[in-house]
């Protein structure tokens, strides 16, 4: 079912070379390197505090690395601000929800299309016809996306009136509205019940099939093992292992780290 390419033929969409960041004395990510091939589902796992979210923050420009390189399609992008990376097709969701609660659910999704729209304020003030038309089309498109992520019941909802699980999906819809090439999902199934988790699992498959490269951080090992083409394991900010699900499952270092961390209920 899942294509498991042994060697990457083309330039990887994303290459990370010796990436590091320190927060004062905390070395949250240390010399991490890996490649992500286009169109795959790539997972990053590791115990709490391993540096997974920090890695996402580095790649999406939220943090500036202390050292190392990030290559998008072979071009260095480290240190670029998030809005620049967004232009290059990088989208993400957040582990700690980042939904704009001062807006409706639909508007949150519409914001995802920011870069594709005419942002001229004078045209906006005077209801320029082309701008209005584009906005109405976007309304429909955002509604489609909300249906796609299973939020058809929340089309008219205010974001601050939605449940946790619904907000998690809303973030995915917003990210998809960017029409990204690379989508980073930080624990999309955290706090969801088994049924909702299964729905997210299916959703990620659908997104990947549509051609988006998905990078996933997730603690639900069943989901990670079944979804991922490749897996990167982090521990204390360092790369512990990288490989296919089968390889990771048998890696002694990984097993030791997980048992050592005493991660209850997580059976790699």
């Amino acid at each position, binding site marked *: 079912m899942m294509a498991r390419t042994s060697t990457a033929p083309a330039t990887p969409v994303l290459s990370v070379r010796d990436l590091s960041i320190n927060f004062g004395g905390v070395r949250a990510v240390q010399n991490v390197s890996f490649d992500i091939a286009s169109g795959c589902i790539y997972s990053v796992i590791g115990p709490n505090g391993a540096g997974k979210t920090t890695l996402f923050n580095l790649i999406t420009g939220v943090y500036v690395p202390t050292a190392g390189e990030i290559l998008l399609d072979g071009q260095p992008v480290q240190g670029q*601000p998030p*809005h620049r*990376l967004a*232009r290059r097709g990088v989208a*993400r969701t957040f582990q700690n929800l980042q939904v704009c609660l001062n807006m409706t659910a639909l*508007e949150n999704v519409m*914001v995802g299309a920011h870069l594709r729209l005419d942002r001229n304020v004078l045209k906006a003030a005077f209801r320029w016809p082309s701008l209005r038309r584009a*906005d109405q089309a976007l*309304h429909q498109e955002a509604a489609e996306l909300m249906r796609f992520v299973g939020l058809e019941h929340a089309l008219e909802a205010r974001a601050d009136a939605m449940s946790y699980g619904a907000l998690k999906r809303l973030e995915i819809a917003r990210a998809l509205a960017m029409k990204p090439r690379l989508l980073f999902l930080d624990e999309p199934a955290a706090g969801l019940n088994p049924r909702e988790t299964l729905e997210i699992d299916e959703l990620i498959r659908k997104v990947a099939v549509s051609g988006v490269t998905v990078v996933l951080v997730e603690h639900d090992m069943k989901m990670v093992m079944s979804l991922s083409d490749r897996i990167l394991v982090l521990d204390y900010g360092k790369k512990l292992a990288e490989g296919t699900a089968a390889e990771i499952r048998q890696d002694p270092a990984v097993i030791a780290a997980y048992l050592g961390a005493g991660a209850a209920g997580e059976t790699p």
Partner: protein
Amino acid sequence: MIRPVILRPMALRPATLGLVALAVLVLVLPLVISNSFYLDLVIRIAINAIIVLGLNLLIGFAGQISFGHAGFLGIGAYASAVLPTHFGWPPLLALIAGAAAAAALAAVMAWPIFRLKGHYLAMATLGLGIILNLIFRNEASYTGGPDGMAVPAMELFGLQLSRDRQWYWVIAALLLVSVWASLNIIDSPFGRALRALHGSDVAARVVGVDIARYKMAIFVMSATFASIMGSITAHYVGFVTPNIADFFHSVELVTMVVVGGMASVFGSLLGAVLLTILPQALATFEGWETVAFGAILILCMIFMPRGLLPTLAARLGSLRFAVARLRAGRSAGESDS
């Protein structure tokens, strides 16, 4: 049970209804009001409302606080007073020059500030307001110092605006256009980007919003707007004193935004109405206005942080919801919120 289309017809949107109601009110008021005292009050309410609309885009929608907006009003007012009086400029050109100066000053000031995090804008604008006020006070040879100076009449296309009725129609038209434009802006890509950076700056950044640029754009816009309204106020009143650029005046404007309702266009109007009338009502307690405004600001922050109109709307909304529930009985379906 999938609802197909979500767009509400234009005519039914509350914003549209509000705009129509406002237009009707604007048309009817001069028929009802014969007393020139009240006409003057209405004009001053409308002027404040327009300023507060611009300020609310900055404070309520984009989440950036300015405590120096009276300074920008002052720039416009004094441009319209000084340039025609001392240099013979036509009033319209003076107004434009004032607006350009306010925009340039706002841009120069905002450029470094918005690259930093935190509430530096509030402090910087506070300082700017104080400095401008001092300049207007001290440059007596041009500005008349603390006593102020007369402002020549506004001329539009060779027509002099002198009578209150004429001013009423000019300002009423400006108010309607401003409300309409504000509503349009908040419901546009530009406006959504502003609201998004207020809601979550990191979320806005990762979807591609250059937040420093957007904060700067709205700050410069609202400063320009304030300057234009400063010019108009000066021409309307026919006289300008440094009080227009006073710190207290800035606080007054912020109070109108907060009391009426942050991020509420019609709330801005309500805030302007209430807090323009209040000083009239408090006229007998001269000197206590400042205290009253401070108290209102604090009480509002504590008991109605969202402001008057949004709070009332929410109350009304939940009431309507409850009534609908009662009527619907147990026929209601999904309840996932």
